[in-house]
């Protein structure tokens, strides 16, 4: 294992922020795994830390394939992490909206550039990503459909052995992310979503670590044996059923991420914040599995509180043909 600083930035009042990379094996740049780009991505950093620990042992035991190189960058923004802030300390910009970066630009553009120069040549890239809504996800692997026609990227979604592989159609806002730019540079890029962001779930962390190891085995980068994981169902992001609030107040959930629900099952209730009576209930409009569950106690109108994967096998093609599905079904009381 080689430990090195790939980029360093100075602050006026703090010790320099040194982005540390851990490299295993040698030869062609085979797979790069990037953890936290934001200050609250604590589980994402912890997953990478576990991977560093595991790969160190695997390397010592001769389990790395000759001529293959793996790089892990657990945390590229510990300045923000150490002060409990999601985005950049000084100007609140998001490093994951600055790629491919610019070495003569603003601070976060320089960080993105410094990071990207070290990782853009890898054949496979895995980013431990987080979602802007607070809630619990089923662990899944996602790729952006940049239209660059990488059939191998699609097919590789199943190599992680996670239950779901999601294909996202990028919008302009996505074009400055690491995942998008990795793909533009010719890398097969994936974003892995563990269950949490600022909380380290023990089981979900292990699930994520195993899925990366499974991917490295499938790609012939490490020699090891691991149980094959789940069958991966690949779906388009827009084929999920988003359950959105039409009332605001206190949220009481009756379903959790991972639970199977039937059409008509009660998912949650919203009650009046001062008087306690029920304002409305959300019931599932379909048979499916809860993929995402919002976890804050107060909700405003228009909040996605649940995302449900339909149990009917629509697959990527069927989902595309069916278009977006957003359902608001309320039983007023």
């Amino acid at each position: 294992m080689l430990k090195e600083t790939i980029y360093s930035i100075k602050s006026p009042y703090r010790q320099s922020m040194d982005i540390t990379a851990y490299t295993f094996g040698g030869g062609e740049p085979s797979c790069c795994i990037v953890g936290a780009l934001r200050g609250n991505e604590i589980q994402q950093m912890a997953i990478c830390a576990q991977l560093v620990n595991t790969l160190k042992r695997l390397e010592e035991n001769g389990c790395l394939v000759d001529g293959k190189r793996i790089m892990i960058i657990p945390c590229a923004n510990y300045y923000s992490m150490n002060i409990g802030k999601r985005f950049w300390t000084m100007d609140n910009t998001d490093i994951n909206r600055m790629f491919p970066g610019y070495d003569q630009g603003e601070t976060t553009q320089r960080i993105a550039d410094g990071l990207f120069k070290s990782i853009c040549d890898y054949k496979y890239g895995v980013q431990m990503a987080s979602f802007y809504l607070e809630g619990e996800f089923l662990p899944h692997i996602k790729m952006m459909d940049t239209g660059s026609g990488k059939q191998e990227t699609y097919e590789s979604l199943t190599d992680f052995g996670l239950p779901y592989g999601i294909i996202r159609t990028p919008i302009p806002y996505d074009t400055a992310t690491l995942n998008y730019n990795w793909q533009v540079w010719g890398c097969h890029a994936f974003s892995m979503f563990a269950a949490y962001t600022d909380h380290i779930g023990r089981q979900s962390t292990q699930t994520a670590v195993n899925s990366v190891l499974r991917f490295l085995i499938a790609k012939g980068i490490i020699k090891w044996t691991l149980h094959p994981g789940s069958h991966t169902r690949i779906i388009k992001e827009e084929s999920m059923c988003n359950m959105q609030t039409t009332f605001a107040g206190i949220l009481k959930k009756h379903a959790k991420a991972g639970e199977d629900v039937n059409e008509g099952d009660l998912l949650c209730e919203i009650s009046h914040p001062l008087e306690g009576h029920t304002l409305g209930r959300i019931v599932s409009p379909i048979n499916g599995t809860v993929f995402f569950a919002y976890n804050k106690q107060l909700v405003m109108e228009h909040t996605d509180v649940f995302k449900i994967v339909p149990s009917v096998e629509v697959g990527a093609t069927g989902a595309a043909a069916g278009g977006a599905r957003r359902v608001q079904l309320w039983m007023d009381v």
Partner: protein
Amino acid sequence: MIKPVYTAALPVMENFVIQKNRIENNVGENTKRVCIVTGTHGDELEGQYVCARLAKLLNEEKDKFSGTVDIYPALNPLGIDSVTRGFPMFDLDMNRIFPGSPTGSLAEAAAHNIVRDIEGADICIDIHSSNIYLREIPQVRVSEQTADGLLQYALMLNTDFVWIHAAATVLESTLAHALNLRGVKTLVVEMGVGMRITEGYCTQLVDGILNLLYKLGMWSGRLRLTRSPIVSKDRNVSFVNSDAAGVFIPHAAHGDYVGANDCIGTIIDPLTGNIAETVVAPCEGFVFTLREYPVVFGGSLLARILEYKKDA
């Protein structure tokens, strides 16, 4: 007349409300509609004074005005009210979610309804005031793609500078892009600095907006034009970023003409008193952007200089 543009329920006993003030007189089939929008970023306040001045003036001198002016002072009311640049609760830049979505989050639904409300207008002026770090000379920014259709209107706004900048895919999420796509000629004005009101700049822009209304046949009152803007493309603009970290002490003033290699500031180390970096102008020109907030990291933008000699 005050009208709601979009409302949605917040969790505890309050509605999120975006409002506009519609001022109209002698509206007929051929009269025009102009929208003044601001407050997308909650820390940008220069537009607040522009809106207030314009509303007062048009209401007081309604006999000299015909058509419709819609004034939207706060597209991000929770942000302005809580000194937050982004959209509170989402921690996102509201000017990166347009055109929004009727079935999206509250922020996306708000963006959708803003676009829908402005659609059909002839012109929209989207007023920004930089951020808390940088002070800007009054300027209109238009992308290269839209410059042909917008430049004639940009020149009417009494600013010092019109910057025709290169297009970037990420900017396709802005309000201006969404409106220009829908046929509303939308001009982005940048001026002043975040969290402050620069009265002179605001008055200058109000005069420019009155000139625009006059050119559109909507205003017959007083006109007071003081500026003839320089028009420039990206290649004439030089960026000056810090390499060192420390505290920036400007030596040039905002709006100065500087020579190539002139010292425009120093970055000092408060612990030792040493100069960490002497910042020099990369070219001869006009300092139209100057850093206002002293603390800098490597990469912090210190100034932008409009090069003096090259052709625009």
